[in-house]
């Protein structure tokens, strides 16, 4: 170059430690997965990956109050980063528990499954810390690419592969659009750094520059895709339904948190001076999202699909917190993300438990009558549904209240009204689940043992490629491959038994949901840190 000595960037390894723990853990888990011993693979790997996440959580909490540059110009830690990290890692820990004895890691391979999970979380961490367009893109892809694979891990089930490929193609399309948007923003401002972009934006006055505006439009679409904002949400129901349920649970909560984390960073920091251009557009998208998500969820019989549409609607609510560009909006969004995490995990845990206990899969029929037979699962599901609907004394109510308050405060009162309308519609499908739990009798076919003609024939049938994992072997022979590839749910290795760790996740998350509704102050205090990260906002 021109005689200038290149200096390596200053790297704060202590600050990076949560990320390093995750990446190191991923490598170790991958190696341990190669061991011959079955116990090492089936229990050692999940245990190690849980320990990795716990270590990462500990390291995150260790530097809860730090706010500094980690890698010059690329990553920085602040309140939002740490709080989101806690959410990612907690979701990861729940996912490890939920997938411990699930089918997916058995079919793919334990080492790979957990290594991919950890890598995806590492991607989220990078995303939450990033202060630069390059790291944003890198983090986004690091989180997405492992997820594409994770969706397809139940390899003998056609829908799992289908969901993987769909997610991959539409996801890559979203990424490409996002990338092009980032390129245009870089072109307009000459910087990939958030601070640099904001500076150039306010100094030169780019708010009417077509290059900049197109860049923003493209990145709105790209991020909207990741956060399941309508009309870029269409992958969500299909992928959520097809993916193995623990993976769906992880995607639903962690990806959403990551996407909104970067939404807040990119729009409320780097592009804040163009707010007049993008805020109305995002508000319109939020409205479309709330309506599309809520009406789409009506009448769905697959619980996973219903929750997918519900997650679309919730994305719309949270987008309102981004639109208002205020510290209150940031706090409300992060608060809702945290509540959303626990209530959704509770619901998914119950679905997983019922998938293993019955042959009905994730159909609504699987939870019918569990109020009488399985109160340990019925209550968490009920609480989760009430909270998602926003009934008082649950975290969901406080979260929604907070968001509506932010919209009214930020001059978008009509958007708050849309949130209320959306919640009203949403009652129709949430209460339907509660009614099924408490007011119906358990269907006769409920308790497992392989049923040749279940209500979902598409998923019945065995695998032509014999060996996959112990326990599921028997089925392949029993039921003729009516349609190529799939597994009878009832034949899961659990043998129709409930696993304590799944019930634990359900109960714990439900308890946290209620706690957030009754004693919300600690969560408010935690979320306060995120607002502090945005010094440029009111």
């Amino acid at each position, binding site marked *: 170059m021109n005689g200038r000595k290149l200096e390596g960037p200053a790297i704060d390894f202590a600050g990076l430690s949560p990320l390093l723990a995750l990446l190191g853990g991923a490598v170790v888990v991958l190696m341990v997965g190669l061991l011959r011993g079955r116990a090492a693979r089936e229990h050692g790997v999940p245990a190690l990956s849980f320990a990795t996440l716990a270590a990462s959580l500990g390291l995150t909490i260790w530097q809860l109050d730090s706010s500094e540059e980690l890698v010059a110009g690329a990553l920085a830690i602040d309140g939002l980063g740490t709080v989101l990290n806690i959410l990612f890692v907690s979701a990861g820990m729940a996912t490890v528990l939920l997938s411990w004895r699930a089918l997916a890691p058995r079919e793919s391979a334990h080492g790979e499954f957990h290594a991919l999970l950890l890598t995806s979380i590492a991607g989220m961490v990078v995303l939450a810390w990033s202060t630069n367009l*390059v790291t944003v893109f890198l983090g986004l892809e690091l989180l997405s690419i492992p997820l594409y694979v994770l969706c397809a891990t139940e390899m003998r089930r056609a829908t799992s*592969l289908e969901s*993987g490929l769909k997610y991959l193609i539409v996801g890559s399309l979203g990424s*490409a659009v996002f990338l092009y948007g980032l390129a245009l923003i*870089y072109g307009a401002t000459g910087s990939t750094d958030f601070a640099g972009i904001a500076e150039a934006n306010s100094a030169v006055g780019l708010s009417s520059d077509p290059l900049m505006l197109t860049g923003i439009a493209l990145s709105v679409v790209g991020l909207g895709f990741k956060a399941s904002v309508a009309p870029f949400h269409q992958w969500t129901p299909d992928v959520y339904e097809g993916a193995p349920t623990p993976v769906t649970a992880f995607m639903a909560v962690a990806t959403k948190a990551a996407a909104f984390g970067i939404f807040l960073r990119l729009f409320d920091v780097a592009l804040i001076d163009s707010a007049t251009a993008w805020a109305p557009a995002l508000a319109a998208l939020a409205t479309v999202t709330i309506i599309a998500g809520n009406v789409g969820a009506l009448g769905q019989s697959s619980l996973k699909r219903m929750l997918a549409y519900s997650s679309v609607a919730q994305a719309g609510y949270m987008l309102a917190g981004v639109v208002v560009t205020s510290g209150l909006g940031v706090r409300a969004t992060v608060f809702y993300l945290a509540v959303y995490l626990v209530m959704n995990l509770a619901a998914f845990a119950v679905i997983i438990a019922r998938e293993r206990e019955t042959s009905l899969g994730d159909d609504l029929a699987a939870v019918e009558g569990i109020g009488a037979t399985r109160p340990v699962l019925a209550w968490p599901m009920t609480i989760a549904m009430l909270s998602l609907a926003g009934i008082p004394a649950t975290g969901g109510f406080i979260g929604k209240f907070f968001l509506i308050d932010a919209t009214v405060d930020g001059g978008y009162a009509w958007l708050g009204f849309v949130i209320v309308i959306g919640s009203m519609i949403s009652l129709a499908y949430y209460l339907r689940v509660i009614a099924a739990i408490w007011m119906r009798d358990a269907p006769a076919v409920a308790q497992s043992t392989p049923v040749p003609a279940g209500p979902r024939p598409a998923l019945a049938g065995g695998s032509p490629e014999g060996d996959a994992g112990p326990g599921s072997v028997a089925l392949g022979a029993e039921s003729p491959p009516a349609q*190529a590839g799939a597994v009878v749910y009832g034949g899961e290795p659990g043998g129709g038994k409930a696993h304590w760790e799944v019930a634990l996740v359900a109960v714990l998350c439900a308890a946290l949901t209620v706690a957030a509704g009754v004693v919300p102050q600690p969560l408010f205090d935690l979320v306060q840190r995120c607002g502090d990260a945005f010094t440029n906002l009111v």
Partner: protein
Amino acid sequence: MAIEWYLIVSALIFSIGAGGVITRRNPLVVLLCLELMLNAANLALIAFSRMHGNGDGQIFAIIVMVVAACEVCIGLGVIVAMYRRRLPIDVDELRELQG
């Protein structure tokens, strides 16, 4: 040469890629088209990098190449798995999940 020309070429490539994603039914070709879109962005990044006279865009482009390679790997892996399951290699046949 003015930056506009680079941008026009880049936009054209991006559009060709996008069009291909919408029209082609073979997932392999779809992956190819996605590559086109990513590389269109790369072209734009490098052009801008040149325009602004800083290296950020070039670093970005190199990272994008790595990511693109990963994506294709994964895509091919999934397609191979589907092939082994004797599933049709046609995106229009992937309609088990809908509604």
